[in-house]
């Protein structure tokens, strides 16, 4: 009981730090990457001064995220004159908490046996025994279904935000957001069913293990990868799918009437969602936390050569691999955001219903037939 509590408490702390830290870093990446690809320098003025000295740490503008956060927290919490008090205050939480929750089923490392970190016979080793835990907050059998179910709740937050702030622009933005997210959820679900058919499991950890045995999902299911990436960027309401909050027509869409940290939550959840989407893409299609040839006992090359690693080193390597993959996929998403122009709303719906959905269905049929023959 106690080891369980300790291990899962550590997992939760780690995952919260991972999500928030990476989301903050992605706000920086978004600025700097766009600057570099547009021949600019980018934000580089915020600094931390070491107390009592004149040493200013600039670190390429990495602290702009902190400055943003502080600004959000200390701003006046302005509310519209007529609004639905309860729903208005609930909406930012409904939009941001599901995003965090989705990560609960994502494995960010393999099996870990904490007892093996310590000297055999020491008190800590006795405490943990030889039990091992999956590095996953909730090792659910229904991983993928949980992801779909919880990410669907995010729509509620968006709709509530638009409706409760009693503003036409918010209302329009919320309507757009709702129809967009629901449309793309369908394509996303169909794409994922093809993935499930291929892997023969809905448990995310088993999917990772399957990929380690066979091949990365992006090679087995390239179409599903593209569909999933497109649909999840659309779910995240970022450019090129940022119709719900397009500045030119709707001011700021469904969170027009939000100020201070309530708006900050919407913005932060957008960046956390980048991390979560990257984590899902990595887990489903890019081999998750595994590295080629990395087995629980060390590197095993095909020629039979092995390079033994301690259990601790393997665990650290797996966690770092996962983080690095998530970072790269996140940067790729940001690259897409700064490259593609926005869709028109009818084009967006056309793309969702007339292109992605049939393609996902076709992919599912082909996958099922192939699976039928090879089984």
């Amino acid at each position, binding site marked *: 009981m106690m080891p369980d509590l300790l291990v899962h408490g550590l997992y939760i702390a780690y995952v919260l730090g991972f999500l928030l830290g990476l989301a903050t870093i992605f706000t920086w990446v978004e600025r700097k990457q766009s600057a*570099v690809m*547009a*021949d*600019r320098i980018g934000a580089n003025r915020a600094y931390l001064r070491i107390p009592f000295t004149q040493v200013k740490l600039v670190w390429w503008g990495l602290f702009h995220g902190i400055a943003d956060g502080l600004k959000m927290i200390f701003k006046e919490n302005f509310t519209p004159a007529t609004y639905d008090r309860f729903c208005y205050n609930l909406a930012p939480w409904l939009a941001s908490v599901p995003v965090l929750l989705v990560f609960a089923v994502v494995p960010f490392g393999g099996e870990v046996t904490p007892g093996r970190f310590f000297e055999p016979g020491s008190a800590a080793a006795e405490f943990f025994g030889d039990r091992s835990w999956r590095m996953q907050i909730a090792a659910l059998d229904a991983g993928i279904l949980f992801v779909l179910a919880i990410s669907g709740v995010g729509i509620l937050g968006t709709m509530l935000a638009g409706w409760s702030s009693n503003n036409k622009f918010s209302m329009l933005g919320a309507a757009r957001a709702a129809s967009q997210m629901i449309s793309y959820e369908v394509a996303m679900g169909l794409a994922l069913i093809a993935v499930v058919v291929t892997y023969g499991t809905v448990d995310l950890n088993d999917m990772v293990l399957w990929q380690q045995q066979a091949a990365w999902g992006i090679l087995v299911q390239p179409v599903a990868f593209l569909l999933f990436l497109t649909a999840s960027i659309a779910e995240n309401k970022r450019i090129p799918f940022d119709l719900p909050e397009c500045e030119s027509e709707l001011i700021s869409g469904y969170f027009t009437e939000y100020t201070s940290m309530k708006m900050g939550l919407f913005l932060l959840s957008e960046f956390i969602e980048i991390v979560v989407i990257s984590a899902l893409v990595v887990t489903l299609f890019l081999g998750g936390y595994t590295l080629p040839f990395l087995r629980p006992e060390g590197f095993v090359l095909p020629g039979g050569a092995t390079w033994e690693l301690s259990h601790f080193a393997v665990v650290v390597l797996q966690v770092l691999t996962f983080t690095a993959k998530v970072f790269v996929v996140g940067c790729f998403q940001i*690259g897409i955001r700064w*490259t593609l122009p926005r869709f028109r709303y009818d084009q967006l719906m056309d793309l969702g219903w007339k292109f992605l959905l049939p393609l996902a269905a076709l992919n599912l049929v082909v996958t099922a037939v192939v699976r039928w023959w090879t089984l």
Partner: protein
Amino acid sequence: MSGRPAKKQYWNEPELGLWERLYIFEIVRGLSITGGVFFRNMWKWVTGRKGALTAYYPEEVRADYSPNNRGRHVLTQRPDGKVQCVACNMCATACPAYCIEIEAAIDPTDGAHPKSPARFEIDYSRCIFCGFCVEACPEDAIRMVKDTPDLPGFDRDVMWGRKDLLMLWHPLADPRKRYPPAPEPTTEVREP
């Protein structure tokens, strides 16, 4: 030449072939363009060069300002080092941004120019660099030079151009526009 009129061509006629309509390949093309620029610039940054076209303002002074650029104001001086301005307030009247403030002082001993500004301030947070003040001045006492005022700072005080900061031009130090030599320069020549 046949008599058929040529089909009217619009400059923005969409010409989407199947390739473009498939969209995915165009995405790849766009990503490789932006990615190419990104990695080229990034390579410059990591090898210690500057991978951007923009300048660090205000640390870096751009070399390509035109000599006629309307930038910072200067108050010209007489050969004896006194400010040429006679505090007539014409520039302040002409200024569309109402950002010049002058407080006059009197010096009865100087018969030719008894009036001079005790305080001459330009609020650069409001100045629009239109140059009307330069046009309005009957004494050629205010000019604009090509470099920019040193504006960035952490409070508004640094956005004021004060008289002592503006008095940067002395006729004897400028080889391009000399004044008739004064009888006897009394004070030390101020370098611009």
